[in-house]
């Protein structure tokens, strides 16, 4: 009897010692939570980024990053937010209080004010995608939300996209801007003013949620004399629009959408090969930027990720939207942690982020601090556009984001 106890104890101690010894070398995990949409109609946009994010984090973790002599690694935990503010808040709370995340990244959907509130209350740093008054649900009083970092200034991005189109097609007559009416509100005032100020000729139209048949809107644009129609982020509608304008015989009307191409094959399949030619999308792939300088290390990493994901999914993976967001968040976070010399004091990390300069996959960015667009911290990313040619996506034009006056 006693013998057994001794043997068990010895075994236990050995295992423990080895475990502790190996733990010394093991990097310490920092959990980063990501509330994102994984169910419902918007789920494809949450889903498409998952593989590259995980692949990128794996690559990043090979090296890890050192703070105070210890090596740290990131671990991504995702929770479905059902694309509602309610779900966003619930997901954020689960991540913060049940999983113990000190950092949240993401929430790519519009409904993140509730996530911001939760993160702010818990003094958890939230690095998110967009942020200013022009975005639906825009929060962004730096005094109220001191722990929120915005990845890119969507309004600036929005304007820059249009400027990039103008650069690519300087002889355009009029740009038609189409958006779903559930996003109406922002564009009514600020965007219109900004576009006017930028000297862009445009007409705006709104379609009700769920509209697949866009013929009435195509006709309205045609009658208003638009030769380019730019659709705000609705990929399915863009494909339908491209197809329908082709069928109606308006073949010279150019179509584009804000947001990167999910997969060129999809556009060819839905719109038809002819109709999809010349479709304009955002282009995030850093390795082909012409005006923005990017650290070649990241270009290599991103290319590697594309390959890993292609292999995993067994088909070419050419979605590039993921490059702009989570990788940059994690780069900013790791660099800020190194500068601050701490991994859990969010106040100290935040202090470093504010006004600091960071190396990201889309170039070096200085966080503008609390002075722009009413949002606490903003960094921009260049508005690069691409266009579908044949069955490939090629570089079209680029317009660097500058803070608006």
């Amino acid at each position, binding site marked *: 009897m006693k013998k057994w106890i001794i043997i068990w104890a010895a075994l236990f101690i050995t295992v423990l010692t080895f475990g502790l010894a190996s733990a010394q070398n093991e990097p310490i995990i920092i959990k980063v939570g990501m509330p994102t949409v994984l*169910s*419902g*109609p918007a*789920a*494809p946009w949450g*889903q*498409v980024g998952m593989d590259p994010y995980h692949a990128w984090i794996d690559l990043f973790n090979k090296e890890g990053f050192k703070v105070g002599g210890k090596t740290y690694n990131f671990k991504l935990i995702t929770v479905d937010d059902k694309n509602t503010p309610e779900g966003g808040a619930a997901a954020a709370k689960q991540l913060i209080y049940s999983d113990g995340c000190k950092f949240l990244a993401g929430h790519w959907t519009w409904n993140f004010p509730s996530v911001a509130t939760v993160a702010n209350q818990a003094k958890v740093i939230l690095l998110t995608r967009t942020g200013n008054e022009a975005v639906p649900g825009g929060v962004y009083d730096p005094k109220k939300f001191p722990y929120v970092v915005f990845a890119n200034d969507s309004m600036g991005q929005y304007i820059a996209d249009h400027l990039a189109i103008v650069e690519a097609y300087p002889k355009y007559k009029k740009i038609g801007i189409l958006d779903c*009416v559930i996003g*109406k509100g922002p564009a009514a005032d600020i965007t219109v003013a900004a576009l006017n100020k930028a000297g862009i000729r445009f007409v705006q*139209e*709104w*379609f*009700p949620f*769920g*509209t*697949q*048949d866009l*013929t*009435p*809107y195509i*006709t*309205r644009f045609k009658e208003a004399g638009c030769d380019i129609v730019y659709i705000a982020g609705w*990929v*399915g509608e863009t*494909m*339908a629009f491209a*197809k329908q304008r*082709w*069928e*109606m*015989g308006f073949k010279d009307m150019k179509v584009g959408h804000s947001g990167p191409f*999910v*997969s060129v094959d*999809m556009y*060819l*399949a*839905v*719109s*038809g*090969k*002819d*109709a999809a030619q010349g479709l304009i999308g955002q282009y995030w792939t850093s390795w082909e930027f012409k005006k923005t300088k990017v650290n070649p290390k990241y270009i290599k990493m991103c290319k590697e990720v594309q390959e890993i994901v292609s292999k995993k999914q067994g088909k070419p993976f050419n979605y590039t939207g993921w490059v702009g967001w989570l990788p940059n968040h994690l780069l900013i976070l790791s660099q800020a942690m190194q500068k601050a010399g701490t991994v859990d004091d969010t106040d100290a990390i935040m202090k470093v982020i504010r006004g600091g300069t960071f190396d990201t996959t889309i170039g070096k960015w200085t966080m503008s601090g609390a002075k722009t667009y009413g949002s606490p911290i903003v960094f921009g990313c260049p508005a690069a556009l691409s266009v579908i040619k044949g069955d490939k996506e090629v570089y079209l034009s680029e317009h660097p984001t500058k803070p608006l006056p």
Partner: protein
Amino acid sequence: MPPAGIWIDGLIQSCAYMTMAFGMVLVFSILGILNWTHGQFYMLGAFVVYYAITAVGIPFPLGLLAAGVLVAGLSILVKKIIIDHITGDLYVGVATMGLIFFFEGAASMIFGMQDKGLARVLPGVVDLGSFSVSYQKIAVVSFTLVIMIILFIMLNFTRIGLAIRATAQQPDAASLYGVSVERLSLTVMGIGCGLAAMAGGIIAPLYTINPFIGGIPMIMSLLAIVIGGLGSLTGAIVGGLILGFLNSVVAYHLSYLSEVVLFMLVVIILLVRPQGLFGASVK
């Protein structure tokens, strides 16, 4: 006056809603239940056609037929396994609402969530001077015409069709035609849901295909049959026509406000004529 393209577009929309609504109203008038899963059968039909063409490689009309048959079988299964075992219209309604989530989830798991397209089916357009019409749209209209003619013949000249019409008027009339009520309701469930699937299949090449495309057609055909009068087959067709043209002609004039017009129209019609345009009077 809106240009011709808008009217053609309204016709296409009407065709889709008519076929959907007709199936729904058939199911309602015989089984007495409102099938909230109708939109999901539409979605499944689109997927069947998609895979029939891309993976199996059978021609489009056959794929369409396959969609109708497969989904009809599925709907009969649903009736046998679920609907038959639940009593009370209200609870059957809620169960079919639960099935919305079930089928959307299943479709997401099996087919994936990303948009799929069938633009290569019947590509090309007919140029008619000031405007053009694609072959796909012509296919939609002619398909709807054929379906409506077949249904008309079936409902007026076959035994089962007569039994369906009689039962729609009076619940236990089926036996007069020597058809058992059980067989009749299975047939009707199959036909109704098969119609939804074929509507999905024929509309699919026009738009994108993903697991969530069923929601809007479902609401639209629900509104169509309610405007037309629940239980009235003519009403479903007229309701479908109204909504189809509303969605294109009114949208052409009023842009996004067409949504408001749509819902206000429904409210007003129901307040003025609570039984719908073609429904039998309650009193």
